[in-house]
């Protein structure tokens, strides 16, 4: 009856620590069994990481990547939530949007890169658009699907209290879909992050995390490759597990009491 449904406190952190340890162990095992020019070990890569983050060039590239991610992702959040909510109240529009998303979502976002490159030229824009596209679909879909399960009694109660359409969206639909919205935002972040790195790897105008990774590969600099992968993993985990999780617990406070 009173079985706790989620781990909390030290036990949860222990589980996370074990997972990290497990991944590092596999890596180090590979490093021990392969020659070091193929697979560098953890200490080598960490040393490389500490020296590289001192370089302004690397930091600039990182900053560029993060700002592209930020613009694309926030664009997707804004429009995904907006379209999702409007689709929630306009039923015909919802069906159109849903069908369009199902079709467009089947195209890997990276497949748009050649088109956008030629239309928009080399620069930040094609990458931002690809990131936004990748994140928009799961965002809009999860919000839209969630609006369907908003309880009619919650809507009716607000209407008899005199809520306008805008107040209904803002005070009933938005908080009611918040759990799915946040799950959608986490899903969208994963998509955005993958799109960012792959687009940067593909578009070689010489900056950013993805480009830095691709370049290390091209010159067979394996400690550079592993270092970039490490940075990608650390950043994504930090954003997802710290920033988005904190946001979730803040927004869904009522579920945690």
């Amino acid at each position, binding site marked *: 009856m009173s079985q706790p449904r989620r781990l909390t406190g030290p036990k949860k952190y222990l589980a996370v620590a074990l997972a990290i340890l497990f991944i590092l162990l596999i890596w180090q095992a590979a490093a021990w069994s392969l020659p070091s020019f193929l697979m560098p070990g953890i200490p080598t890569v960490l040393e490389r990481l500490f020296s590289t983050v001192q370089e302004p060039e690397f930091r600039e590239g990182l900053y560029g990547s993060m700002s592209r991610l930020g613009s694309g992702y926030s664009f997707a959040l804004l429009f995904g939530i907006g379209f999702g909510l409007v689709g929630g109240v306009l039923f015909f529009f919802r069906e159109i949007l849903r069908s369009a998303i199902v079709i467009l979502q089947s195209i890997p976002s990276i497949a748009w890169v050649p088109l956008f490159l030629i239309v928009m030229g080399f620069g930040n824009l094609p990458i931002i658009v690809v990131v936004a596209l990748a994140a928009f679909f799961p965002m809009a879909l999860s919000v839209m699907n969630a609006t369907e399960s908003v309880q009619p009694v919650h809507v*009716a109660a*607000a*209407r*008899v*209290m*005199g809520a306008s359409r805008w107040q209904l969206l803002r005070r009933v639909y938005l*908080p009611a879909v918040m759990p799915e919205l946040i799950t959608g935002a986490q899903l969208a972040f994963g998509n955005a992050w993958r799109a960012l790195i792959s687009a940067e790897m593909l578009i070689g105008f010489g900056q950013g995390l993805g480009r830095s990774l691709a370049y290390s590969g091209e010159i067979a600099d394996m400690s550079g490759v592993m270092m970039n992968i490490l940075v990608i993993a650390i950043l994504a985990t930090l954003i997802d597990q710290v920033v988005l999780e904190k946001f979730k617990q803040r927004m869904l406070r009522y579920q945690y009491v």
Partner: protein
Amino acid sequence: MQLRFEEVDKQFGQLEVIKGFNGEFAQGELVALVGPSGCGKSTLLHLVAGLENPTAGRVLADGEKIPGPSPRRTLVFQEHALYPWLSLQGNVAMALELQGVAKASAFEQAAAWLARVSLDGFEHYYPHQVSGGMRQRTALARAFIAKPEVLLLDEPFGALDALTRMALQDVLLELIKEHQPTVLLVTHDVDEALYLADHVLVFSARPAKVLKTFNFTHCEKSHDLTAFAAERTEILRLLGIKTEVGQP
């Protein structure tokens, strides 16, 4: 606020829920609607609330056709109508906030109203943290805070246990005495109707027709309903429940 139904029909697609309903309810009256499940009583409330429009006929409030929902005619639902993401205080305050009252003032008045229904100290609790009876007290506070002229109650205590229900009926009576709204109460509980109402309308199965109207002039309301034994038997008989014992 006076309410008037003129030859009201309501259909949902092919389903005829209300047919040719007429009725007039004076300001300050408390009218109970009892009848079999799904006979259209709740639909009558939704028509008055402005959530639905009649297919034919007119529903008038103070002689005016009802244009849509308005906080002057408010509805209390059976349960689960509080917002789970708002504290009890936030839920009550929302009724005022939706009418443009500033948040601070709305929250202050909400706290006073929670105290009025004996929930002081529970302002910051969320609905899932309190009992069903406390949730319905909150729902009553949320309804009364907007000073409605018509109060529509859709089986407000239907999900509560008998003792909690009786306590809440008394809370409701007190609030009604104080604020004098016109009240339409849909209930399955004949004793609740007898205890609370000035008039009891007994409905047939769908499409809803009034089988009989009972009028009471209560001097002093009391949970001892023995004085109404004859009416109780009559209402239950109309609803198809046999109450005589020992018949061969």
